[in-house]
């Protein structure tokens, strides 16, 4: 199998199979361009200036896991039931990251255009928001309550129904 080298923003190289790298549509199209330019023989080096080393490492974990034998490239055909369930469990564990890591991961997934990973991250973010009070969400995501006094009053009024159970949520 062909291998390619992905170079992160801090210059570290990662060697992966072209199959795993092609889960990223961005890399896939870059690879096609490179192949056309430099021919089949020379080593393919893809520079990724927008992704730092530790995020790239994390992304590649996902790509490798999701291209292991048994998974077709399209990810749909021939996936056995057990394999699918294993992957789900793996994905769940994979998502146990800090909010900070999650931010870099979702931005990388968006930049590299890895559809499966992007969805997984967004589900992760949604999980952090679902059923949480605004206060909670602010803490989690390191946001500042920068509303004007009048604006906040307006929110409280129109969103009463959404904030009713806030105290209950805060207890949890």
């Amino acid at each position, binding site marked *: 199998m062909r291998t390619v080298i992905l170079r992160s923003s801090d210059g570290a190289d990662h060697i992966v199979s072209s199959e795993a790298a092609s889960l990223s549509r961005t890399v896939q199209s870059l690879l096609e361009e490179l192949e056309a330019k430099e021919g089949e023989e020379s080593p393919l080096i893809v520079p990724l200036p927008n992704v730092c080393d530790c995020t790239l490492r994390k992304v590649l974990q996902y790509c490798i896991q999701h291209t292991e034998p048994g998974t077709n490239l399209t990810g749909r055909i021939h996936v056995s039931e057990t394999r699918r369930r294993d992957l789900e469990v793996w994905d769940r564990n994979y998502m146990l990251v800090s909010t900070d890591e999650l931010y870099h991961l979702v931005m990388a997934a968006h930049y590299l255009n890895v559809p499966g990973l992007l969805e997984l991250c*967004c589900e992760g973010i949604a999980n952090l928001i679902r059923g*949480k009070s605004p206060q909670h969400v602010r803490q989690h995501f*390191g946001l500042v309550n920068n509303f004007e006094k009048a604006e906040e009053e307006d929110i409280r009024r129109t969103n009463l129904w*959404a904030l009713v159970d806030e105290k209950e949520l805060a207890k949890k």
Partner: protein
Amino acid sequence: MGEWDTVLDDIMEVVLERLNPQDMARMRSVSSAWRAKTDSLLTTLQLRHAQYIPEATGITHLDVCFYAHHSFTAGTLQPLQHLRRLRKLVLENKARAQPTLLGLGHLGSQQTLLVEIHVKAFIVAVDSGIDRIRALRSLHLASCILMMGKGQGFPAILTGLRQLRYLACKGCSGLNSRPFARIASLLSLETCLLNCSLRMSDDTCADIASLTQVRTLGLACSALEGCLTPACITYVGVQSLCRMTQLASLDLSGHAAISDASIAEIARHLTVLTHLDLRKPACDSPGAEIVGDDGIVALSSLTLLESVRLSQAQVGQRGCAALALLRRLRCLELSYCDSLSDTPVCELTLLSHLSELSLAGCASVTDIAVTALVRVMPALVRLDLSACHLHVGDISLYAIATLPKLQMLRLHSCERVSDVGIKSLCAGAAAAALMHLDVRGCERISDTGAACIGSSLQQLQYLSLEHCHLVGDRGIRSLSALPHLEVLRVGGTAATTDSIAAEFAQRVRLESPSNGRIWWMLES
């Protein structure tokens, strides 16, 4: 901490899709950046679950609301009144058997900014009050039961709506002797689709004929009612409709009394027609007339025609030759024309630009004619050969397989189609785009054919295998690889429920045999 304030809109959109309105509303009170983002992404909200609607009312700036659900009650609709800024409202009741009452008048007293209303499968009370929605431009009522005041007719209630351009009540029913009385007062109408089982008569035609802005007119009558009241629109009605010389599209399907003379009248006066639908119900009621070559030859003077639909007509050589002269024709239907044989059909080979062709129920048409037509019509997108059961089979499929743009193929009851034909269809260029395949009642198709479909027709969204009794669990299971499949009809096959994995069943809507009584209402 990451810069969550500046997270990309693309990402936020995917996150929002996964939240319920309550969470969305809370997101708006997190920070001003998130508030702005949520608001800009949330101009439209699609509500899928009933429990969300009371909560959606917190997002009062919504201007479009889609609401489709299985169990509407009067209570679930109540909170809608808080969404005062709605401009477009779509309500669809998915449990057709339990319609809920919806008062348009009540709606009108709250949502005065509405521009567009779509209501599907409700009991709709058309009462006064709706005229308070002054900006209303389009009103769609599909498959609704209309309740209106005695002898009044619902257009009377709508007269205050000066902006109303579009009125449709497709498939609606109701009890009233003259439901469309006073429709002449809706002067701003441009599109008027009254395709339903409500009583239509020559009087209705006379009323409608005074609407000078209407360019699209539908007066179709469902097959069921068509059999009961066969001669609802006769030559007299058509004559009054012919005053509307601005008409571009006319649908008179379901009216058995349309004759050659009526068609000649249409051809003489409605010179700018582009779409004409004159399909008839299958019944031998006393007032029924037969359309023959004379009428069809008259049509050839309407050179702008793009779509012609006829059924139960006595089409022969002369008729087909006349149709072949309509060079703008893109869509042609000649369904259930029993007398139509190969020689006349081959005249149609001049129509090389056709994108839609239906020869359903033309049992005398053979593989030879189908092959000849398909070879010269590379642009075909929809092809219907249902019930051509005597002479159309695998050989036609060899030719059909070469059509690169084909999206819809209906072969229902073509008993001569077998696995061999399906295999060649799946191997040809047609496999790339095919989205809708109906092989119901093709009894020679077995698991092998189903497996071919499952592995090749990647774009398939609708598949009917009803009454293909040789298709079993193995065949159905092989279909689970189709990524876009939404509707799978399996009634009458040998498949058991075990063959359908839970995950597959969740994604795909499995349907039982259909009720074919009001067929053209459902199809279009």
